[in-house]
């Protein structure tokens, strides 16, 4: 083996780890290059959305199911953590964990009966749940603050180190986002991940290979709900103010669009989708007027031409082309 070949072999063997390192480095250096609070605020949003979309992406891409209510879990995480830590004066970290556990339980209670059904009943169940939670957030104003929102949420802290400046929050949020990304990358590259991919591809074949499809779907649903709840809690603690409008059904469809842009089942795509849709309004001045048209248009066009989603669809095309070229070269 020549040294170049050895280098290439090393690069392909550790491609995932290296890519994660590269992205981490980027996140690490970003505040040094640009510490404008507005830009950092955007990067916070990207990190938080990435967390939600990672879970949702896994659920849509690997369980083959639709959830139109992930803003519910996001909102429950945010409000739960806000209420527990502000009203009851519990430590933010503890409240974050408590809420995540409660959300996991809720997802379990909904997921077990509904995911037993064939067809896409879960889409409706989650949409209904989203509506119920949204109404409660608005109506129960003595606890949630009602339509005007909930303010004065304490920031997270480690001993005396409080995550209260945008730069500190940037590191906190991206640590979470990248950590979750690494965990998900590990998951999809494992035997469990292959089992899940089998479930999305063909349920009968998957169960014949020994995958408990029902349990797998519920597990992934709960995992994605927990990630969304975590993202919600981080959102509440780093922005200090939340209002119900962030967690309505339209927020849920926005998450779905992020998943579709990223491509179903693609972990890197999740981050790309979250970043793309979060930053889109920044690039377009007239965005507010045409927001629905642009969002809907993206969703429809991507699905029409690349049913697997933008990033995944393009990757699939590349993989096939690559395989055929190697085949032709060898033949």
């Amino acid at each position, binding site marked *: 083996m020549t040294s170049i070949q050895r280098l290439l072999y090393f690069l392909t063997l550790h491609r995932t780890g290296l890519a994660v390192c590269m992205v981490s480095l980027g996140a690490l250096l970003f505040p040094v290059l640009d510490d404008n609070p507005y830009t950092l605020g955007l990067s916070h949003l990207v990190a938080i959305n990435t967390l939600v979309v990672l879970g949702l992406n896994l659920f*849509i891409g690997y369980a*083959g*199911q*639709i959830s*139109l209510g992930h803003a519910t879990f996001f909102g429950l995480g945010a409000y739960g953590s806000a209420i527990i830590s502000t009203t009851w004066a519990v430590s933010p970290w503890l409240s974050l964990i408590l809420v995540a556990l409660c959300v996991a339980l809720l997802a379990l209670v*909904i997921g077990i*009966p*509904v995911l*037993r*059904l064939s*067809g*896409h*009943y879960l*889409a*409706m*169940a989650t*949409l*209904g*749940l989203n*509506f*119920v939670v949204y*109404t*409660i957030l608005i*109506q129960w104003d003595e606890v949630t603050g009602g339509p005007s929102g909930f303010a004065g949420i304490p920031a997270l802290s480690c001993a005396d180190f409080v995550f209260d400046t945008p730069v500190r929050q940037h590191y906190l949020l991206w640590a979470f986002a990248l950590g979750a990304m690494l965990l998900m990358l590990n998951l999809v590259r494992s035997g469990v991940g292959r089992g899940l991919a089998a479930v999305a591809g063909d349920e009968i074949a998957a169960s014949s290979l020994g995958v408990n499809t029902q349990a797998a779907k519920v597990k992934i649903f709960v995992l994605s709900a927990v990630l969304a709840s975590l993202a919600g809690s981080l959102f509440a603690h780093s922005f200090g103010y939340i209002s119900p409008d962030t967690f309505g*059904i339209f927020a849920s*469809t926005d998450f*779905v*669009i992020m998943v*579709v842009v990223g491509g179903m089942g693609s972990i890197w795509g999740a981050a790309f989708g979250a970043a793309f849709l979060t930053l889109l309004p920044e690039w377009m001045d007239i965005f507010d*007027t*045409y*927001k*629905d*048209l642009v*969002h*809907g*248009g*993206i*969703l*429809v066009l991507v*699905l*029409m*031409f690349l*049913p697997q989603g933008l990033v995944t669809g393009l990757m699939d095309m590349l993989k096939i082309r690559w395989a055929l070229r190697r085949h032709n070269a060898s033949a």
Partner: protein
Amino acid sequence: MSRQLWLASQDTKLQDGFFVHTDFLQFILSGLTTGSIYALIALGFCVVSNTMGIVNFIQVDFVTLGGMFMFTSLFTLGLPALPALVLAVAAVALVAMVLERIGLRPARSANHLVLIFLTVGLSIILRGLIKLVWGTNRMALPPLSSDVPVQILGASVLPQALWIFGLTMLAIAVLTWFFHRTSLGLCMRAVAVNPTAAAVVGIASGRIRLTSYAIAGALGGLAGVLVTPITTLNYDVGVLLGLKGFAAAILGGFGSFPGAILGGLGLGLVESVSAGYLSSAYKDVVAFVLLLLVLCVRPKGLLGR
């Protein structure tokens, strides 16, 4: 009469109508009124679900669009009420067919997941277009005929409620006739029972899908035309109504037409009685709590197979 004044007069009329001994009857009647609307929307969901096997999220916006077209034909074109209604319903049906043809047909995948996401996307686009054309302000539509309440068994009923009952009945009758007496209707039922077999005997799936969208659009549009004088008209008025219509469809057993009607009426009744006796702040939540309960306990719905 200006619209604000008209709305205000509606409020006082409703309050005047509340006499303790007729409360229950009043709740039943108003429940049946909204229930009929839910039933119409639920039927629209079922038609598309039976022929294509997907949840058609655009149904939600057909309802809004019905009200919007009615507004335009009444105030911009200056038509009288009934022709305006027919025009509005036909226009929604047309829009539905166009959406199916250019929005869903070219999809490269027959995967249900993808098709459902496509309807979500089309629904977002349609809502954006409605916002652009009609704006985001709240508007009010006048009822189809006079707004003097009629007394029935001591409860006061708005003539609009009678219109809703009557036209819902008519729609159901026409649908029944269509599905049992016309060859196109028979073809659609065949597709619902077994799509593959229907394709094998030469039923063109394209025409069936187009028809099912037209019917779904007409049903949603009719619901929108009828309900917006009671609520107000807004670019997203259909979202909540549509979702409740879907809850009704599942309640009755998704895909079953009698189930959709029964589910719609049942949901309307439960909602209005619970709003009357429990709390009106959480009125909108009832439908979805019911939906979640049904999905957990009896997922096939009341009349599901």
